[in-house]
């Protein structure tokens, strides 16, 4: 249950981890395919589908993770802005009550 809640709250980071793992699996599968044949024409498709696609998936995963960090920072700035508005309103309110 806790894991489900954690995944629900951090779905973007969970997606990032899944993408990075998929990329790593693609690279390992590509290596496995390449090592199974000694002919370059048979190895090249594995190089693309394993190596290049794996790197692409890892890159997307890292981007998703960094996007989640940026979103968190954006939400924290929301909270700071709200507190700042309260702080700026306080002296004005005190001044009003004195009149």
């Amino acid at each position, binding site marked *: 249950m806790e894991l489900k809640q954690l995944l629900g709250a951090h779905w973007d980071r969970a997606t990032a981890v899944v993408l990075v793992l998929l990329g790593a699996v693609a690279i390992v599968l590509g290596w496995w395919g390449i090592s199974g044949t000694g002919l*370059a*024409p048979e190895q*090249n*498709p594995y*190089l*693309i*589908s394993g190596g*290049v*696609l794996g*790197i*692409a998936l890892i*890159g*997307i995963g890292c*981007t998703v993770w*960094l*996007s989640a960090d*940026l*979103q968190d*920072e*954006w939400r924290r*700035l*929301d909270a*700071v*802005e709200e507190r*700042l508005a309260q*702080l*700026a309103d*306080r*002296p*004005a309110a*005190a*001044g009003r*009550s*004195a009149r």
Partner: protein
Amino acid sequence: MEERPQLPWSLADARTTFFTAVGGLGTVLIGWWGASGTGRASHQTGWMAAAVVGVLILGMGNALWLLAGRRAVGSRRAQLLDRLEAVPAEAEVDASSDATLVAVPGTARRHRATCPLVRGKRTVAGGEDLRPCEMCLAGS
């Protein structure tokens, strides 16, 4: 009041990233499809180059996405810092006001912020539950 976006990215950023991701991944898949369709290494070189270009397109789109987010967060942080610099000035005006009540920590009386008995002393705002100062709050 100014409407604040919920995310650090605009729709144009999302559109650019989507098209570069689809285009990049599509180019990689086309490269793989082309390379696996021929048995000669010399014919595969071009398809492999296409796959590498696809990854570069994808990476460029991702970098633009992250830069746009970083720029938006940085710009908003700078705006907040500007506003933060303006807040103490308002607080100082308030501290010199007769309406503000203060107390010296550990003492039993509350004072006006302008009371000479607290001038130069470290004070805290509040103290409504303390006894009023006979000098500055007499009769209030």
